[in-house]
């Protein structure tokens, strides 16, 4: 990989602290000029192309592959099949830890889902490999596939999401419902959705003896490295993974999936470097997705509109061979102060690739239904949806009674509503029209996402020339880690961003933890912050213990680092530069490590969540039923905002995804074959630019002393929550028609308008 040359645009001139500055992306110029190397941009000499052949049936066995025909095709070098492949060191079916998911590594001829890899064709050109794959003409023994939310006997999964109990409750829900003055009982459905990152999953692999070099987009360098090490039986230090940029991941590149493993196997088989890139339609199977859900919400409220009970049940699916359960009902744990809350899940097994984390897993699916149901309840109580939410504002976490580490949701409601003009909303639906006669509807939703922390480590150094180094194997998925983490590094080192060599994105750097759970900036940031403090402490030791230094005797606590200098806290005129300190001490650099980790004591004591309030306006053609979103305002409180520009982009992206959830996205599965019929970006609709209305994001000031040293809560996923429900509620408000199946489709409105 060529050295990254991140830009120093004028915007990077430092104005006081780096954290909080809206720096533009430091990798922006590289990206817009096409010089940012994504995994598939690498072409090591002698490289061959590998193309996966996938199953067209969803259940059964592969009985034959015409390997000879594929091999006869000019340019085809080899065909990897269950009968002809390098041996893995361990069975890929073994779950060596809870973050290992079963993958298809050609270890069986059984077919468990459509688009399952069944062979890999390796050729001199992409075209030859592609045609070779077509020539395999697989034959199958086909069994009737299990499809849909009613495919079989349901069962209660042992856990949902990551280790959450499938059922939780507090208070007596049935009694709460029985005593309610008003009740709603509503069932909603959400469809399967696919991550559809712009960049398909890709890997470029080079074996050199038992050393392995990998270019691959990953949201989890170290998890991937460990998985590769165990699958191929090689030591960690023999593996080098580069992942400087991801063209989006959204959870689908978090854990090592089957396709990149097949790339590594293929390279081993033929003894040459390999590039393997998934085709768009192949991303609808082996690399995870958001499972469909059917959710029933029963809510009760008293005569004043106070909740008496909230019961949220979610049915979902997992694959026939592994377990991931979309924890949709858990969205009801934190937001509304019902004296009785019960959440429960059940599931059926279907012939699908295993569902996995997809941006706001559980929170997104649960939020759109919870926010719809809360809206239905508000209407049943004759109350404004915002007033209803305020009436049921949770001062403490409802399920646990713990106080929140911080919660500026009230301010989000206030500021968002003011910016949107919510006060002018008609209580009744179908009251508002625009000049052209279109129905206008206003809806809102509350956003929430837990403030998580994982484990990370960083290495910091200060060099003789006064510059700094910060190393951490962090991941830039497009969210701006190259910039935001460098800002934290710069502050930690007391330097301007451009005086810090910030290294990230490779597996030889300290483990940054997974870039998921909206926790990357917080986790990696905490490690960077502590490594910075540690290296400054070392430097301060050198100075304050040296009689020749103007800082002699100041003691660690007595100096501060600023602008490449250490200065006495009690007398800012006394100080010296980093390079002076190092030169006199005769050392080339000082270094130190720091870690970021959750604080169990604080987590015990406090509930930690980011919050927000999203307001949406839609217009609906009263005759044709066509819906478009015309404006959205989101106000979010997520602790400290490291880079407002990047945070705004994250929240924009989340809000757009929310409207996409409400109105557009759906993988259409053929109920007979289990195949996905719209596995391409032409037919799997996400919003185009012209669908995206003016968006307004407000970041509400929030100071949180408990979540982590920097007070960061994370903004990666929260934008979807609240937004999807706000759009759905706006459609109801425009039309008076409550659609409970998402995405909202024209036929559901048409007949009822």
């Amino acid at each position, binding site marked *: 990989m060529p050295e990254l040359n991140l830009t120093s645009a004028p915007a990077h001139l430092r104005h006081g602290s780096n954290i909080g500055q809206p720096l533009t992306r430091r990798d922006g110029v590289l990206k817009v000029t096409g010089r940012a190397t994504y995994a598939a941009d690498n072409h090591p000499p002698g490289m061959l192309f590998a193309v996966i052949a996938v199953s067209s*049936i969803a259940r059964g066995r592969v009985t034959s592959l015409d390997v000879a025909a594929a091999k006869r095709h000019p340019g085809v070098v080899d065909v990897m099949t269950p009968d002809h492949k390098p041996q893995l060191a361990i069975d890929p079916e073994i779950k060596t830890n809870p973050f290992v998911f079963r993958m298809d590594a050609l270890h069986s001829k059984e077919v468990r889902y459509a688009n399952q890899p069944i062979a890999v064709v390796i050729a001199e050109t992409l075209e030859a490999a592609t*045609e070779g794959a077509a020539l395999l003409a697989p034959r199958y023994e086909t069994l009737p596939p299990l499809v849909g939310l009613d495919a079989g006997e349901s069962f209660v999964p042992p856990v949902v999401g990551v280790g959450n109990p499938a059922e939780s409750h507090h208070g007596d829900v049935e009694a709460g419902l029985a005593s309610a003055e008003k009740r709603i009982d509503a069932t909603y459905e959400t469809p399967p959705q696919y991550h559809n990152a712009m960049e398909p999953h890709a890997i470029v692999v080079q074996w050199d003896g038992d050393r392995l070099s990998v270019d691959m987009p990953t949201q989890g360098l170290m998890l991937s490295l460990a998985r590769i090490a165990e699958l191929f039986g090689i030591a960690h230090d023999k593996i080098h993974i580069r992942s400087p940029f991801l063209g989006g991941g959204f959870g689908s590149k978090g854990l090592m999936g089957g396709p990149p493993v097949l790339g590594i196997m293929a390279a081993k088989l033929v003894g040459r470097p390999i590039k393997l890139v998934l085709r768009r339609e192949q991303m609808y199977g082996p690399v995870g997705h958001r499972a469909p859900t059917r959710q029933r919400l029963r809510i009760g409220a008293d005569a004043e509109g106070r909740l008496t009970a909230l019961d949220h049940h979610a049915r979902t699916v997992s694959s026939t061979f592994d377990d991931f359960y979309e924890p949709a009902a858990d969205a009801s744990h934190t937001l509304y102060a019902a004296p009785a809350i019960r959440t429960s899940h059940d599931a059926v097994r279907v012939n699908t690739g295993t569902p996995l984390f997809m941006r706001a897993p559980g929170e997104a699916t649960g939020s759109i239904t919870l926010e719809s149901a809360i809206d239905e309840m508000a209407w049943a109580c004759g109350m404004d949806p915002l007033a209803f939410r305020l009436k049921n504002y949770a001062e403490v976490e409802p399920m646990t009674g713990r106080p929140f580490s911080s919660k500026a949701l009230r301010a989000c409601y206030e500021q968002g509503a003011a910016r949107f003009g919510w006060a002018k909303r008609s209580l009744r639906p179908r009251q508002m029209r625009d000049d052209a006669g279109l129905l206008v509807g206003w809806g809102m939703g509350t956003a929430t996402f837990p403030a998580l922390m994982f484990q990370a480590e960083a290495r910091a150094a200060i060099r003789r020339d006064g510059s700094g180094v910060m190393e951490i194997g962090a991941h830039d998925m497009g969210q701006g880690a190259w910039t935001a983490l460098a800002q934290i590094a710069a502050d930690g080192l007391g330097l301007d961003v451009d005086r810090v060599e910030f290294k990230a994105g490779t597996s030889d750097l300290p483990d940054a933890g997974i870039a998921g759970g909206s926790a990357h900036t917080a986790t990696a940031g905490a490690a960077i912050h502590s490594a910075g403090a540690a290296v400054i402490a070392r430097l301060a030791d050198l100075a304050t213990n040296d009689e020749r230094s103007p800082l002699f005797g100041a003691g660690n606590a007595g100096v501060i680092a600023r602008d490449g200098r250490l200065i006495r806290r009690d007398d800012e005129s006394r100080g010296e530069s980093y390079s002076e300190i190092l030169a006199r001490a005769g050392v080339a650099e000082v270094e130190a490590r720091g870690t970021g980790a959750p604080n169990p004591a604080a987590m015990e004591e406090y509930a930690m969540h980011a919050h927000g309030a999203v307001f949406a306006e839609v217009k609906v*053609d009263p*005759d044709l039923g066509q819906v478009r979103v015309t404006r959205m305002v989101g106000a979010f409180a997520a602790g400290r905002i490291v880079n407002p520009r990047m945070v705004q982009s994250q929240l924009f992206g989340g809000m757009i995804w929310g409207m996409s959830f409400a109105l557009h996205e759906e993988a259409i599965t053929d109920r007979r*074959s289990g*195949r996905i019929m719209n596995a391409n970006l032409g037919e799997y*609709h996400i919003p*185009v*630019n012209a*669908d995206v209305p003016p968006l307004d994001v407000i970041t509400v000031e929030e100071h949180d002393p408990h979540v982590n040293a920097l007070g960061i809560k994370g903004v990666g996923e929260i934008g979807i929550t609240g937004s999807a429900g706000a759009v759905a509620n706006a459609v109801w408000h425009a039309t008076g028609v409550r659609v409970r199946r998402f995405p909202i489709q024209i036929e559901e409105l048409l007949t009822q308008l």
Partner: protein
Amino acid sequence: MKPFDYVRPATVAEAVAAAALPGAVFLAAGTNLLDLMKGGVSRPDRLVDVTHLDGLDQIERLPDGSVRIGALVSNADLAHDADFARSYPAVAEALLSGASAQLRNAATVGGNLLQRTRCAYFYDTASRCNKREAGSGCDARDGENRSHAVLGWSENCIATHPSDFGVPLIALDAVVEIEGRGGRREIALDELHRLPGDAPERESALEPGDLIVAVRLPPAARAFASHARYLKVRERTSYAFAIVSAAAALRIENGKIAEARLALGGVAAKPWRARAAEDVLRNVAPTADAFQEAAWRALEGAKPSGDNAFKIELARRIVVRALLLAAAGTPARIPALPASPFAATSGAIHA
């Protein structure tokens, strides 16, 4: 990819000869054909690239008042030809409502008319499809078919033709000029596409080697310029095919409709001319009631082919709206969101 011959004929005659061989197909911009080839849906032996042929990329005004559009004129160039757009505004609006800007820049007049259906089972080579493989069956019939045909379908195929462009063209009596092995001939656009019947694999009246060289709009087509609209309901604002669309064109004299033209898109295996509806609009005032009546006529005989009964009702409502918009008069400029029901109110600057 499957190897294929690529030939680039120098003349129309050579092109026709080259494409008359079995397994040969014409390649225009390839925005549809190459996708189909990549997916293994089309596996031609020979591509006859017509994009370099001379003289097929002109928009000519003929002395008799008709316009002749070369088959290689790009969708974007045609829509942006100011004189053309003024004379045939519904055609320009339909073009601009199709696909995306990038696709329109490439896509050609001939290719647009001969693009294949978007039926997902046609694209999915593991499914049975009579159109892709004659006699194999139709998996759409009991499958995911909410976007399929409600008019003119048969048990053998329920697919729709996806073109927007063809809809106003058929309403305006467009004529297709064809060069074939037997020389030049012309047919009404209404006769170009075939309904599926018992041979859905035969999609058009073209014989092997037949090249569309031009599409002509007759002199009378201009007379609708001041009352012509295209309306397209789709699930997102751009880069989406119509669920249902309609082209409506009126010639209004002394407050009465002297002549009406109406066609529907997204409802059948061809752009659907609604002549019965046109008839009831002759010599009546352009009122909502008259348009309702026309809408009922237009959908006479419509029946769902699956989970798509809503398309019939939607089509009726679109017909009424398109006629109302046409009666209100062609806007001075094509709206920023062409053919959208939201054209008037959206703040978007383009689709």
